[in-house]
């Protein structure tokens, strides 16, 4: 429970800080903290491989990409000072309409025995790369191939988007 509270508070605090920070570089760094805290939560849930993957893929690759683009564009200079602007009335109504059933419903799950029972015994090497690989390449082989195609399409799309059309 201690780890859960610490990592959970870290994740929530960093997420709030990200949403309300005016400087997008600070926002990106707070998101790194948030992703790290979620990686820690993965570890408490015995997902060792995902812990490592989260840190490498998210905190490593994706956030570096974000920071790179923020620095490249220099958006901080042009960012309007009223950000983050307050919610409009319509948005606020919408947000409250979504939030109330969500919070109420999930608070009600504390009354469901199946969700509050301590989980049963875990299979051998649960969460290890080996178990994940077995699952991935046996039961999820086709989706895996499709993601390979997706990444290829994304790479080609980025090349097309990033090409500078100087002729004309």
């Amino acid at each position: 429970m201690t780890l859960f509270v610490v990592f959970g508070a870290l994740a929530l605090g960093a997420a709030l800080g990200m949403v309300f920070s005016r400087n997008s570089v600070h926002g990106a760094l707070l998101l790194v903290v948030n992703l790290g805290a979620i990686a820690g939560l993965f570890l408490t849930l015995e997902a060792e491989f995902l812990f490592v993957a989260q840190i490498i893929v998210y905190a490593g690759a994706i956030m570096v990409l974000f920071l790179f683009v923020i620095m490249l564009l220099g958006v901080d200079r042009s960012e309007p000072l009223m950000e983050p602007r307050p919610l409009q009335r319509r948005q606020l109504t919408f947000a409250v309409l979504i939030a109330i059933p969500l919070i109420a419903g999930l608070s009600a799950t504390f009354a469901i025995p199946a969700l509050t029972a301590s989980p049963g015994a875990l299979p051998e090497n649960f969460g290890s790369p080996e178990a994940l690989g077995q699952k991935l390449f046996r039961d999820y082989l086709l989706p895996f191939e499709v993601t390979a195609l997706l990444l290829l399409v994304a790479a080609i799309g980025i090349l097309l988007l990033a090409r500078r059309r100087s002729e004309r």
Partner: protein
Amino acid sequence: MSAPVAPPSNVADRDRTRSGKPLLLGLVLLVLVVLGVAIAVRNEPVTTSHYLMLSMLLFMIGVGGVLMRRNALVLFMCVELMLNAVNLAFVTFARMHGSMDGQVIVLFVMIVAAAEVAIGLAIIVAIFRRRLSANVDEMSLLRW
């Protein structure tokens, strides 16, 4: 009447004029409170519901960010936050059922998120080149 103070020219200047001391004090207090709570409840069992609640709160913060912010890069970061919240729920259920399927799905979500971020950032860079702005309110060409 004194002369009006010139507004700070940019975010960095304004941040520098603000004293960091109350913020630091607040942070220290917050850390102490969190540690206190953590030690107080250390013997309580942490259940699936706790993780689901945390996941939902993170998701809601992400939704709020998307609604409130106008900078396209920050919007993307909020989307990442939502994806991560969902990942957390998946891992929680994988732990609850003792099955690896949830973790495999999380891996797929990570792959899709990586592709999405790469494409999205490329689009933002392309738009920025043309319009010199990353404000989503100004990207209204497709609106009818």
